[in-house]
């Protein structure tokens, strides 16, 4: 599935630690994500999954260790962070679309301000991605006029408009009504098939089985287990992963 010979690591995390005051949120995180690889991160709530991926684009600052995005080290310098964020797309649990702008304006703002792209060019790009997530007809509407599932697909399109090298997903389906989830997952699967590098925090185990190259299991701020999805689901090595899976699938 993965051509390891040509692949280079796009995200490299080594020895990363993070504290909130005295509370250790992340401890000694080591993870490399190759170009084109899809990594699903799972684990119980409070295990540091979201915090870990939010450190990659510095929505949260880490205190120790090193993060490289496509070979560039992430430093606390704002100019550096802005550059990194333009290479890394992010999709949030709560969409975080800009409610005072139309869908189209949501999409073209980033490319126009950060990449100096003309309005015409940005609009073409935005419409291309909106068609891909099947929201093109709603381009002139405002986010609150759309359903949750549609908003999340817009959020994915907005991130794609920045032509990111990596896409981070922070529980993208957790805030959605059940009938909306499939539409969002379909878009994500399609994106994966197109070869996008993805790090996805999710509890959608069906998605993990279908798409993931590796599953990362976290608990109490540490990476406990990294495995191929088939191996992880059929034969988890750690007790904590076994317990987690039994709770997840047990009813």
């Amino acid at each position, binding site marked *: 599935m993965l051509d390891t010979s040509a692949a280079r690591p796009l995200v490299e995390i080594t020895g990363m630690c993070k504290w909130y005051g005295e509370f250790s949120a992340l401890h000694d995180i080591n993870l490399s994500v190759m170009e084109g690889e899809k990594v699903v991160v799972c684990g119980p709530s409070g295990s540091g999954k979201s915090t870990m991926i939010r450190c990659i684009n510095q929505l949260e600052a880490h205190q120790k260790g090193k993060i490289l995005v496509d070979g560039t080290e992430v430093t606390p310098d704002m100019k550096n962070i802005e550059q990194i*964020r333009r290479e890394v797309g992010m999709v949030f649990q709560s969409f975080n*679309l*800009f409610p005072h702008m139309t869908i189209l304006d949501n999409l073209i703002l980033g490319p126009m301000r950060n990449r100096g792209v003309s309005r015409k060019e940005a609009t073409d790009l935005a419409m291309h991605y909106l068609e891909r997530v099947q929201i093109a007809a709603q381009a002139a509407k*405002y986010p609150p006029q759309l359903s949750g599932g549609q908003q999340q697909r817009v959020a994915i399109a907005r991130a794609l408009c920045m032509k990111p090298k990596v896409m981070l997903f922070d529980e993208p389906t957790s805030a959605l009504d059940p009938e909306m989830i499939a539409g969002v997952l379909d878009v994500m699967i399609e994106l994966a098939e197109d070869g996008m590098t993805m790090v996805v925090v999710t509890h959608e185990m069906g998605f993990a089985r279908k798409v993931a190259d590796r599953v990362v299991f976290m608990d109490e701020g540490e990476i406990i287990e990294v495995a191929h999805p088939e191996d992880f689901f059929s034969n988890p090595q750690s007790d904590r992963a076994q317990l987690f899976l039994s709770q997840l699938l047990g009813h």
Partner: protein
Amino acid sequence: MQGRVSAPTPRAMRRREHQGFDLAGFSRTLWQVGQAVLVFAIIAFLIWRGAQAMEYNWQWYRVEPFFYRVIDGEVIWGPLVRGLIQTLKLASIAGVIAIVIGFVTAFARLSDSISGRIIATTYLEAIRNTPLLVQLFLFYFVLAPIFGIDRFWAGVLCLAFFEGSFAAEIIRGGIIGVDKGQYEGADAIGLSIADKYRFIIIPQSLPLILPPLTGLIISLIKHSAIVSVIAVSELTTAGLNLIADTFMAFEVWFLVAGIYLAVTVTLSIGVSLFERTLNKDKR
């Protein structure tokens, strides 16, 4: 019932029942309005009778020249109108400066800069914990001679710095009131800090800032009366001068209060209409 399957009635076919004219409700409303009118009538009567008892000589027929006179077909504005124009000029210049001060102070308080936070906090505490009248005297008797500014600008700056401290807190509250997810959404697409505030945060905090800021501008117009103590020629000063000339204290103060009321009510109606149009195209 079990096993029954029914198609929903199309929404367009569901008719809402319309009620006829609610006579009982209407007469209740009418009675309440009547009560209010009655209370005002009683107050007006008491004032009139009190004035009667002290043998006050009402001279409403003399007030027209306070507003304007026509000499040889040319309109000459009276002292109240000229005072009103000065008040509006004073309040609008001070209002603009106050809002600028408010934004600068709010961002200074929200920034990472320690010196910015210290300066902003000192300014806020100093202004909010001293009387406006004392500040006015400081501006007029101390700062004005030092920096060579006239009484009008001493009044403007004093009001601007006073209201600016309240504007700062209103603006800071509005900015903090924007959902945290909006900051993260803006950060995630790599916007610079300036772009983040310009395109995402400020536009969304305006609906939170605008209503209390209107209240602030209204109180600025009212507070502008205080500059009459340093003899800036605005509406209240014009009133004082008229009374000195005519001894018509009752009429003049009613008129002056009425003019302030007309200006502030017009302003708040205008802003609420503006807010309505602002919200209409979003929903």
